[in-house]
Every structure is written in C-alpha cells, then in structure tokens.
C-alpha cells in the first residue's frame, strides 16, 4: 500500500500533465531528428538542441516568473514586452555613449541604469493598479503601447549595436552552460525561496483570492500588489538585457515582441489560473519550457515562423476553453454520470486527469 502512495500523489499533481506534454514534445522532436537529444562538450561549453531551448527560453522564463506573481494577485502585466525593449535601448545607448564603450564599467553602468528605469516603470504600473485601482489590463496597456515609443525615442529610431564583451556575457556568454540559463535559474531559485520560505507567497495568494477579506485581515494588499508589478518589470528588464546582449544590439521595434503572450501562456499552462490566487512556480517553469520547445519545434521542422503564432493562438484558445467551467462540466459529465451505480474511487479521479487542459491541448498542437 505504502509504496503506491508517492505514485498516487504524483498522479494527482497538477504538474503531471505539463510534464507529460513537455516529454511528448521532446520525444516528437527526437523522433523527427535523432540528433535532437545529443549533447556535445567542447571548449568547456555544453552544446546541443536542449541547451539551445533552455537558452532561448531563459528570457521567457524570467518574464513568466514575474507574470506569475502578478497573475496570482488577480492582475496581469501586458507591458513586459515594451519594458524588454526599453531595457535594451537604455543599456545599449548608455554603453555606446560611454567614454570607453568596451569597458566593463560602461556595461555595468548601462545595465544598472536600465534596471533602475525598469523598476520605475514597474512602480508606475503598480501605481495605476494598486493606488488608482485601474483595471490591470488597461493600466498596463498604457505602458505596452507607450513603451515601444519610449524605446524608439531612446534609440532615435535606430538599431544600436554595441561591442562590449562584458555586456555580451549576459546573453551570449558561457560558464559551462550559457550564462543566461544560469541567471534565469538563479532568479527562479531566489523567487521560490523568498515566496515559499517566507509568508510572502501566502499573502500574495490571499490577496489574489479575496482582496477585501485580505484587507480586513490586516494584509497590506496595496503594497503587495504594487510590489509584484515592480518585480515583474525588473524581470522583464533582465530579460531585455539578455535579449539585446545576445545580439549585441538594441532593436526597439522587435525586441521582446509578443513575449507577454508567451509569458502569460507559460503561467496558465503551468496551472495558475488567470482568476488569481494559487500559483505554481514549478508549473510556470514547465510552461515556459513547453512554449520554447513548441517554438523550436516549429522552426526545426521547417515550418514558416509565422505559423508559430497560429500554433500559439490555438494553444491560447484551447487553454481558455478548458478553463471555462462550462466546457469542463460538459467534458467531465460524460464519464462519471452514471446514476444509481456507485462509482469506484479511482474512476472519477482518472476521468478528471483525462481532462487536464494542458494534455489535450498539447496533444492537439503536437499532432498538427
């Protein structure tokens, strides 16, 4: 009996299906392209498609982490893509304008400036949402639209290229693994520790589930909401530095384009509801990996990149549908509703699993 228990726990874990989906996606790739799983060790660096997925997924993961906490408080942040562009623009133009554009000092000053500005942008979002109580989707839409304009102003509408080895390390450097992976992992671990080892996670969830009850229980609802927007903006800032460092350039138009969608999707696939409340960081991690693998799969199978968007759209629709109580009810009804006959314990549970959003969704995508 006892030996089956951990297995049961695992079976009822909400992470199961995202995990299965990821494995299926990876397996599909491996079948189509056997070299997919290969890892090479060369000059002290690890290479391979898997490493590429992790590396390219790092910015998405970072942003998804911030987004996850924002969503947990019943919010959403549409401006992260614009913040990515602004971070890159500030860092690059600062480095280019420095006395010695190749020095480490220029790089650090540029990145520091960029992150500081991102924090201010986060404060702005938080101000609109928490203090002025504007609906998050509208409040962050302001910066989403204005942000790219700001980035254009900073770069004068040009693509700024830099040649700074220190700056380049962030997005393209290696320390056995690509540095960007290490940064993303570090931030992930940090957030996990800070939210789960302190009471912050509980307070965030409480605010997301019932803001008024939380306020009356003495929580600083406003400060908490404000803080998560600042955190999300800083995450987006770091992601922006990675992206522009990777190509050694700031592209105000295209850097981080649509990345907010990927981030939201990653959070939702990971089992965090857009209605706020309970969130899962591990789920978000899986979600980000699934998204990136999906993107990579489409590319590597030689499908036009534009189609990627269509795939993601399909995923969004599927997720939304499967989150809708009505659709769930319809899907669930089919199995357990056999009146007048006691249903064994295992059956309804299994039926529920079969309906997990991610599974059917990813299957659908994988098949097409």
């Amino acid at each position: 009996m006892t030996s089956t228990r951990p297995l049961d726990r695992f079976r009822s874990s909400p992470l199961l299906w995202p995990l299965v989906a990821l494995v299926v996606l990876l397996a599909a790739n491996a079948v189509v392209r056997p070299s997919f799983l290969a890892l090479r060790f060369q000059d002290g660096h690890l290479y391979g498609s898997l490493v590429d997925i992790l590396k390219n997924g790092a910015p998405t993961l970072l942003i998804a982490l911030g987004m996850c906490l924002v969503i947990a408080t019943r919010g959403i942040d549409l401006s992260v893509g614009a913040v990515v562009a602004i971070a890159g623009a500030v860092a690059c133009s600062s480095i280019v304008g420095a006395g010695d554009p190749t020095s480490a000092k220029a790089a650090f000053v540029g990145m520091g400036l960029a992150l500081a500005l991102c924090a201010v942008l986060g404060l702005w979002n938080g101000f609109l949402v928490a203090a002025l109580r504007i609906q998050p989707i509208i409040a962050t839409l302001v910066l989403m639209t204005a942000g790219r304009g700001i980035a254009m102003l900073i770069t004068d509408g040009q693509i700024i290229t830099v040649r700074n080895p220190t700056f380049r390390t962030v997005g393209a450097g290696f320390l056995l693994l690509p540095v960007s992976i290490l940064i993303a992992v570090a931030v992930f671990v940090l957030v996990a520790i800070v939210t789960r080892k302190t009471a912050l996670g509980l307070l965030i969830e409480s605010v997301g589930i019932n803001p008024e009850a939380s306020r009356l229980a003495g929580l600083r609802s406003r400060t908490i909401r404000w803080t998560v927007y600042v955190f999300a903006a800083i995450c987006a800032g770091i992601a922006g530095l990675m992206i522009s460092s990777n190509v050694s350039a700031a592209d105000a138009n295209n850097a981080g384009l649509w990345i907010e969608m990927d981030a939201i999707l990653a959070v939702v696939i990971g089992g965090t509801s857009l209605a706020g409340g309970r969130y899962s960081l591990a789920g978000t991690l899986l979600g980000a990996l699934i998204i990136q693998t999906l993107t990579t799969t489409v590319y590597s199978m030689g499908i036009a990149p534009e189609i990627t968007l269509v795939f993601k759209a399909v995923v969004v629709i599927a997720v939304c549908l499967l989150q809708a109580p009505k659709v769930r009810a319809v899907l669930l009804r089919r199995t357990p509703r056999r009146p007048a006959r006691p249903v064994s314990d295992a059956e309804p549970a299994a039926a529920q699993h079969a309906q997990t959003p991610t599974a059917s969704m990813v299957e659908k995508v994988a098949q097409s």
Partner: protein
Amino acid sequence: MSVDAKQAPREAGRAAVVQMRGISVEFPGVKALQEVDFRLLPGEVHALMGENGAGKSTLIKALTGVYTPTAGVTLLDGREVSFSGPADAQDSGISTVYQEVNLCPNLTVAENILLGREPRRFGAVDGRACRARAAELLADMGLHIDPGSVLAEHPIAIQQLVAIARAVAVDAKVLILDEPTSSLDQDEVAELFRIMRVLRDRGVAILFVSHFLEQVYEISDRMTVLRNGRLVGEHLTADLSRLDLVSLMIGRELGALAEVERLAGQAGEEASTVPVLQATGVGRKGSVAPFDLQINRGEVVGLAGLLGSGRTELARLLFGADRPDSGQVRIDGKALHLRSPRAAIAAGIAYCSEDRKGEGVVADLSIRDNLILAMQAANGWARPIPRKTKDQLVEKWIKALDIRPADPDALVGKLSGGNQQKVLLARWLITKPKVLILDEPTRGIDIGAKTQIQKLVAELAQEGMAVVYISAELEEVARLSHRVVVMKDRSKIAELDQHATVDDIMRLIAHVDERSEAVAA
C-alpha cells in the same frame, strides 16, 4: 396547482413532488451524503435539519444539479430527473436560494431580481418596467429599497432578501431556501414566513433550512433530520419534541436542550470600569452619525438595532474598515489613527465580518492558512510563523471550536457554512485582541456550536477581553451583554445596562414606521 391544502390533512394522500432515493454524494476524502432518502410534498413547508456539516446544503445541491450524486435517483412528479445545474432545475420548476448569497454585486437590485427574465419592449430590456416589477416584488416582502441601486451597496441581510425575492418571482412548484433567515431580523423573518405560508397554501412545496428551532417549529409541517451525511429520521413537526429533535441531530441522549441552555454563555459579574476603547464623536457621512462609545475591560457590549440601523457600519468605523471622517478613538488612553484595518489590528482591535464569503474567509486557502492569516499579516511577510507553532495553534483551535473536517489542509471554501464561520472566528481569537468586534458571529451556526460560541465569548470577557457583540437575535444580545447599545436610523439612540430585556430593546426600536427609509438610506 389546485391542491387544497387546508382540507387535506398535511401528510396523507398526496404524491411527493420531489422524491430522492438512496442519494450518495462523495468528495475526495469526504462522504458528504450516504444513501439518503428524502421526499417533499406539495403544499408543505419541510425543514431539513442537522448540525453544521451534516449535509443539508449538499442534499439541496444534489437535487438541483450542482453536484452529481454517485448513487441514487431523484424523481420529480414521479419522473426520474437529473439536472445539469440550477438553471436546468429552475426550468423544471425548482427555485432555489443557496446558503451563500449568489448574486451579481455589480448589478442593480432590479437586475438581480429579474436577471434572465426581464420584461422586454420591442425586443430590448425595458428598464423602467424592470424596476417597477422589482419594486413590486420587494414591497411584497415589506422591503422598500431603491430597485435601481447597486446590490453591493446593501448589507448582507438585504442581499439575502433580494435573493429570496428573485426565487419567489418565478412561479415555481418547489421553493428551496437554505438558511434564508440567518441574518434577518424578527420583522423580516415574519414577513418571509407570511410569504411562505401564502405559497404553501397555493400548493408550492417549500424546503427550508434553519438553525433556529423556534422558526422551524413555527413554520414547518414536517422535517427530515440528517446526521453526518446519513438520514436519521423523517417526522411530522408536531410529533417531534425539541428535545428529541436535538438528540436526533447530535446523536447523543444529551439531557438535550436544558443542558445546552445551561451551558450557554451569560453575561458575567459586573465588568470592570477600566476603559479599553473610547470613541468620541466618531462618525462618517452617509454611514453613521457621530457617536460616543466606551468599552471597558472584560465587558461585552451588545449592539442592537434593526436591519440597516447602522450596527455593522458602526463596527466598521471602529475597525478602520471604513475611515471615520470625524471624532477620535483611543485605545488604552492612546489616540489611534484609524487609517486602515491594519492600524486597528496593530492596536489590538479585531473585527469578524458578517459577510463571511465576501469579507471573511479566503476560500481557496486551507483551514491552516486561513486560521493564521491575521496573525501572519501582523507579523509581516518576512517572519513566517514557524511550522510547529502553526500546527499547535491550528490543532488547538480546530479542537476548541470543533471545526469539521478536522483536517488543516482542507480548503475552507469546501467547508459547510457553519464551519467556515468557526474558522473565521478562530482566526481572530488567535490574534488575542484587546477588543473583539463580532458581527453576527453565530450566523449559520448550529445550536450546539452556538451555545459553545456564546460561552466562549463570556469566558473571553471574564479573562479581560472587551467584546462588541452584534446580532439580529435580540435574545442573544440581551443575555450576553453587560451593556446594550441601541441603534436606529444610523445613529446611536440609547445605552441600556445589564438588566435590559428584549422587551426594553424592542420598545426603543419599535417605532418602525420610518424603517423603510432607514433601509433605503
């Protein structure tokens, strides 16, 4: 329907409208109902009785298709049915008011009442007709509020009445009311009972849940008793004494009611005269007129008044839930700036809201997290309560208030209404406040637990806690309080001492002619 209810003896000779056989409902880890049989006759008021968590609401939800039973059949007018949800049940003539008010807070009162069946003109919703029809329905219930006002502006009791008006508005053959009276005053209850009698005599079958025995004996013809998810009996009300009913419900041959009554809390000896909280001229425009109030150590101060008299509003001001715009509050002599609930909590004030779903429990968190929430918030995020302390506290309070299920990891949203109330109460007791403001703390709590809570309040006061006790049940207020503050038309009109009786209080607030205005304000 033309069943002549007056002629026929209440029980015999009528086919049941609703018949449920062998109904079982299971949730992960909980058998909420086990092979329960139930029948409801036309033209009767049928009381469904049982302790908190006995399965009353679950049975109702199984009937209306909210939950799918794992076993059993449901017959409506002799035909087997299985509803896909409340709307489906409604289409078949079963109109339900669930225990937790289930309306749209952002819509107007009229829209809430008529949602989905608005009067139309040229295909478009006719707003004016809508409001007129709603006003009519409300007036029927003795309620004179503006049907164009937004629902959320009204206190929970009015919302409950609106939900009832909505259910009554359809011509249903079965009307289900799950604890409709839990936050109503005597007058509203009387009004509701009048309507129920009219409907009953028209042949409507009414299912009624309440923890107030007097009400049950006043209105019901028959009752079904549940205990721990099992059927323990179906009786004519007239045949079952209160004593037997209570024994059936709690399953013990307790010297029942007498014992329960004896255990109930009583206002203790004279309270001290050391003031803990002093409010002078505290008020807020449009909410409560400026009032003075002093609460002493170890004193229970009752707040009495009709619905809409400003009881809850006064409490919210003292807690900083609404910011007072005049006056001053002192705690232990120190002036307190009531910016927010947080400031009030830091000063030692706790407020247990009457609206447990909207302002109380955090449904998707566990019992454990809900219990420690206020304490944790006061500690700040950086200092989590150690696991061990947490477990001890949680275990202690689950036991002390007999919260069921006694599983700290159970989600509070899945608990029965009464158990949610206990969780909320315990959350505040854990913070060991100096002043505890309880707004309808026994709302929806079964009689056993109710006396338990009253006793607890009396004990806490004896230990020196100052308690503000708000309840629509004047008897409870009069018995527990050292002093009773009477509210009317949103101002404090009198303070009575320990010897105040229900009649004294009633006399002060009895002139109900302006009541409708007070409610509408």
